[in-house]
């Protein structure tokens, strides 16, 4: 065991401070120190994406980042996306198009999808499939996930157009 570090993070808009061993993975700091259990551990090798969070504007797999590396960062997890009475358009569309089954990949999947649509607001099906290839789902076969994301994209774009 090594000495603990003083870690400061901004998670879902709230400032958090705690002590952690530098070797502690970010996913465990989130889940066990901050009780943010939406991001899940599926592989600990960056393959499955169940632990995906947004760090300083980028999609990151929090199972292969030390909490020390995240020190000072601004992090968004699934808990910071949508509200129970005002779901994010992606959350709505995943439900509408049956884009989830067991739900284990879903927090990472939706978190990644929010970034994907920021990076590319009007993606083709192929671009969605490529952009989501870092997130594994064992239940849905992806067809309805892709449908959910494409549908969310059109809704977001339609809303933007209406606002202009």
């Amino acid at each position, binding site marked *: *065991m090594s000495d603990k570090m003083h870690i400061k993070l901004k998670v879902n808009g709230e400032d958090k401070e705690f002590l952690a*061993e530098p*070797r*502690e993975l970010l996913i*465990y700091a989130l*889940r*066990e120190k901050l*009780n*943010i*259990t*939406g*991001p*899940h*551990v*599926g*592989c*600990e*090798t960056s*393959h*499955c994406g*169940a632990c995906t969070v947004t760090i300083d504007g980028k999609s990151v797999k929090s199972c292969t980042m030390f909490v020390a590396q995240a020190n000072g960062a601004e992090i968004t*997890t*699934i*808990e910071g*996306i*949508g509200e*129970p009475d005002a*779901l994010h358009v992606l*959350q709505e569309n*995943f*439900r*509408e198009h*049956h884009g*989830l*089954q*067991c*739900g*284990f*990949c*879903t*927090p990472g999947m*939706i978190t990644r999808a929010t970034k994907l649509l920021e990076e590319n607001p009007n993606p083709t099906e192929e671009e*969605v*499939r*490529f952009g*989501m*290839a*870092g*997130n*594994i*789902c*064992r*239940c*849905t*076969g*992806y*067809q*309805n*996930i*892709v449908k959910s994301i494409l549908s969310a994209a059109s809704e977001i774009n339609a809303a933007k157009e209406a606002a202009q």
Partner: protein
Amino acid sequence: MNDMTPDREERSANLKGMGCSRKRVEDARFTQGKGNYVDDIKLPDMLHGDFVRSPYAHARVVSVNKEAALALPGVVAVLTAEDLAPLNLHWMPTLAGDKQMVLADGKVLFQGQEVAFVVASDRYVAADAVELVEVEYEELPVITDPFEALKSDVVLREDLEGQTEGAHGPRKHHNHIFTWEQGDEAGTNQVLDNAEVVAEETMYYHRTHPCPLETCGSVASMDKVNGKLTLWGTFQAPHVVRTVASLLSGIEEHNIRVVSPDIGGGFGNKVGVYPGYVCSIVASIVTGKPVKWVEDRMENLMSTAFARDYHMTGKISATKDGKITGLHCHVTADHGGFDACADPTKFPAGFMNICTGSYDIPVAYLAVDGVYTNKAPGGVSYRCSFRVTEAVYFIERMIEVLAIELDMDAAELRRINFIKKEQFPYTAALGWEYDSGDYHTAWDKALETVEYDALRKEQAERVEAFKRGETRKLMGVGLSFFTEIVGAGPVKNCDILGMGMFDSCEIRIHPTGSAIARLGTISQGQGHATTFAQILASEIGISADSITIEEGDTDTAPYGLGTYGSRSTPVAGAATAMAGRKIRAKAQMIAAYLLEVHDDDVEFDIDRFVVKGAPERFKTMKEIAYAAYNQAIPGIEPGLEAVSYYDPPNMTYPFGAYVCVMDIDVDTGVPEIRRFYALDDCGTRINPMIIEGQVHGGLTEALAVALGQEIAYDDLGNVKTGTLMDFFLPTAWEVPNYETDYTVTPSPHHPIGAKGVGESPHVGGVPCFSNAVQDAFRAFGLRHTNMPHDHWRIWQTANGLGLHD
């Protein structure tokens, strides 16, 4: 009635009952990250367990030195077999009638086997301590091939030495487990010997793993004050786990509460009982604190379960014009170091005897030899009913091989051998009574939709173009027609550890007309909370939105055998309908009393009872529910509750017709799926949206298994595919869009005619993908090549056929 009274159509739609694509009630919490999985459970003073595992596949454990580990601050205990022996928990019974070491007792039999269990204050300290446990091993010869095992002098299971009788009859050799025979051997051989045409093939259905995204885990909490043990875990069968935990620990069953919280996918992986569960219980009893154990992905792929690993040899005979006359199948089944296969007790090779498939085959014989090797134990049904995937793959490959032998179109060969609609109920040569089917209609619909003849024409043109050097891509048309056997099962012949495989539902209607129903099953993503409420809504006339479904807590749910083998809808779904009908029967009496008519003078109408011939006189289910609680009704007990334990009279037999069109680049070995059409007949359809989702998911798991996913070992028994880098899980990038379709042939014995669908796409999908790859090379003389058809192996196939010359 007045103008505000909704019409029948509207009342029916308001119920959200059977047949509608109701949106899932589970999704609100899952999309917001508010699921509650085992690893999300956090209890005060909770400790973490982690395993010391064997790096060797076969070795004697000479000594285990815990000193350095115990000296590490935060380490509470290090358990070995020696510590468990006084409690008689160093071994545990398996579901297959064998026993398995919980912690290595003198030797290890597979790489990754559990040797010691470290308990510490957090997962990092536990992992550090694992590294500090010093284990001295003495290597022993490793056997990873079952054929070699049956010849070898090396005794793998020394604990069984001298035992010539196993749980399933005589053992022929010290590494042999059982021989399971079905059908008529002499009769089959006679037909084969005298047949006009016989096709023979040997095929290996490789070892793989269900690999749900959430690994296995448990949290045990022994409350020494009250004497109560609570166990949360990734259990597909929580009630059976409670019974097993009681039998193993000696704690009375009423003092054990088992809870399956949200489960992050199962696919068979979470049916078995694993050493981690046992060790977390023991550690909690020893320390008096809650203990969590969650395996990592490598541990999951190396130690908790595997699927398949069947070496199959087949002979199929036919007349010259293609009428099948007999089928012979022998399987050498690699069960690993312990026989921990998860099958009903009387079926050591599961329902492999459904291997006559969808065809009217007069005589057949099946023999399965189970064998010990130095591989992980735990043959589970990965997204299929017990060994049905193997059976369907076998027959669907044999049909293709026979078509080659006969120089006949494989679709036509299937058509002329299908069991005919009028033959149902049909008793197959290996004993099963198929309840219903209409195979010809499904097949014709499938072939017509994909324009089969045009595909074959295009394929023939492609072959010519390839020969002329105009293209390097070949085209494969993969066919499969499958019949599943699901819904285990009748208590008379199906049990798990002696528990009959019934299932259950208990319903309580609340005074204001909403309800809660609890079942003996447990959803792992199938959407039970959504669909079982739909069944009930149609049965009792209360909107699905007003019905809560609960599963997985053994303190509250009625006893049931759990969710696997597509049994939830066939068995618990039937219990739900039957319990609903009990509610309705009582509601009828209450309605008649309230309407002041005889019981027989009212009838059920969507959400109410109406006086026959006078529909303006009615009582809604809501009114009836209130009356059940608020007034004394002569001769009727207050309240409105019912329970049903349903013992199915037969299995159900879903079927389907699949077609895959594939282009294969012979120079890279990369297959490109151009089209996949899946027609499923699962009987009555409860929620089309969920059915479609199940089909997409099952097909994707089929794609994975057929095209690359495997648990491979080297000669020393090292697992070569122990991470997601090597173990193929398809991403969105590799998966096509699927076309789904259906016919409806209701099960005649199921209360609502439903048959189950979760596993059909996997069962039918694997041979379809595999047949597509192999069909692409048929014109160049390929007869059979084993899965998985990854790029390298496809390239090798092309190379072997001289296509790179």
